[in-house]
């Protein structure tokens, strides 16, 4: 159990390091080493730690714990093949955790990061379109049923490509340096993470690692189906590299433009699901 968690966190951080490296290479920079993110996590955990004077202490500490807790739970859910609805619920609730990070310290930068994270809630809506479309095909939302369906009918990636694109975009909006990453844009210092330093920041790193791992793994499980574990890891890395390419070549959007584009994508997806619902027996 615990070994899965540690592995997932470490591998997720490694993927994030890869992400930075690929972006740097695309942009003709040398970039940091691939394990830079793991080093970061360790470095922060050695640093001196306290709680800011103005912070709302319980919330300030609590969100870190909650953040690690929900993503650990998400990992177990994916591994056990439980309902993807729970997974997506946790994904949406991550928003609230980000918000808690931003607001609890009293820092103006953190606050703006938190507010932006709230504005970008539109990015989650494509998820529900994904859910609805999958439900139309399988009649179940349990991950093991979805895997079983794919074992019979082939991967969803080929059955319903637009749905896969929707989820791809959702993952994209969660990655740093992407077009929709308005919460972490550099005019806000480090966005909602600004005031969480030391051990707290190490906790955030664990969260990020787990989150990246879980989302990519879920993508593989939902759209590719049952593959050996090593193959899943390879596919995840490939997907991540493709995401990094997108991040590297697109500009960051302004907050409300990002919301609008995500809303439009949702509308398109909704139309697609409506079409599916119409043609399905």
């Amino acid at each position, binding site marked *: 159990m615990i070994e899965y968690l540690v592995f997932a966190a470490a591998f997720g951080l490694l993927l994030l390091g890869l992400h930075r490296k690929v972006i740097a290479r695309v942009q003709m920079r040398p970039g940091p080493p691939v394990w830079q993110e793991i080093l970061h996590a360790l470095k922060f955990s050695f640093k*001196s*730690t306290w709680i800011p*004077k103005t912070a709302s202490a319980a919330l300030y500490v609590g969100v*870190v714990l909650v953040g690690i807790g929900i993503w650990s739970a998400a990992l177990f859910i994916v591994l056990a093949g439980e309902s993807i609805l729970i997974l997506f619920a946790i994904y949406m609730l991550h928003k609230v955790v980000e918000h808690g990070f931003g607001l609890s310290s009293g820092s103006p930068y953190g606050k703006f990061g938190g507010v932006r994270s709230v504005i970008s809630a539109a990015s989650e809506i494509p998820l529900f379109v994904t859910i609805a479309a999958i439900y139309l095909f399988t009649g179940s939302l349990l991950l093991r049923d979805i895997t079983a369906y794919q074992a019979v009918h082939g991967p969803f990636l080929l059955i319903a490509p637009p749905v896969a694109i929707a989820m791809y975009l959702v993952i994209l909006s969660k990655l740093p340096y992407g077009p929709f990453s308005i919460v972490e844009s550099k005019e806000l210092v480090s966005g909602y993470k600004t*005031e969480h330093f030391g051990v*707290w920041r190490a*906790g955030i790193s664990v969260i990020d690692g787990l989150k990246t791992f879980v989302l990519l793994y879920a993508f593989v499980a939902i759209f590719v189906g049952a593959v050996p574990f090593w193959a899943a890891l390879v596919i995840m890395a490939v997907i991540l590299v493709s995401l990094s390419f997108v991040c590297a070549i697109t500009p960051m959007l302004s907050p409300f433009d990002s919301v609008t584009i995500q809303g439009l994508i949702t509308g398109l997806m909704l139309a697609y699901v409506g079409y599916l619902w119409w043609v399905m027996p």
Partner: protein
Amino acid sequence: MKRKTVSLGLAASATVIVAAWAALAAALIPLWAAETAIVIAFPALVIFLGLWWRAPGGEEDIPFIGY
């Protein structure tokens, strides 16, 4: 927080995780119970571990408000 509290917390969370792991291996408790225990204990473990080996804490300060 005092060093002792941190050590205790670290020990407690580690114990919970190990106990859950062992009990699951011995089939004493169902999978979901072990998972719940670990989900609760793991965040505490991460934070306490960091606090346990960290450098001494600094003075309380106001947030960062600009360069």
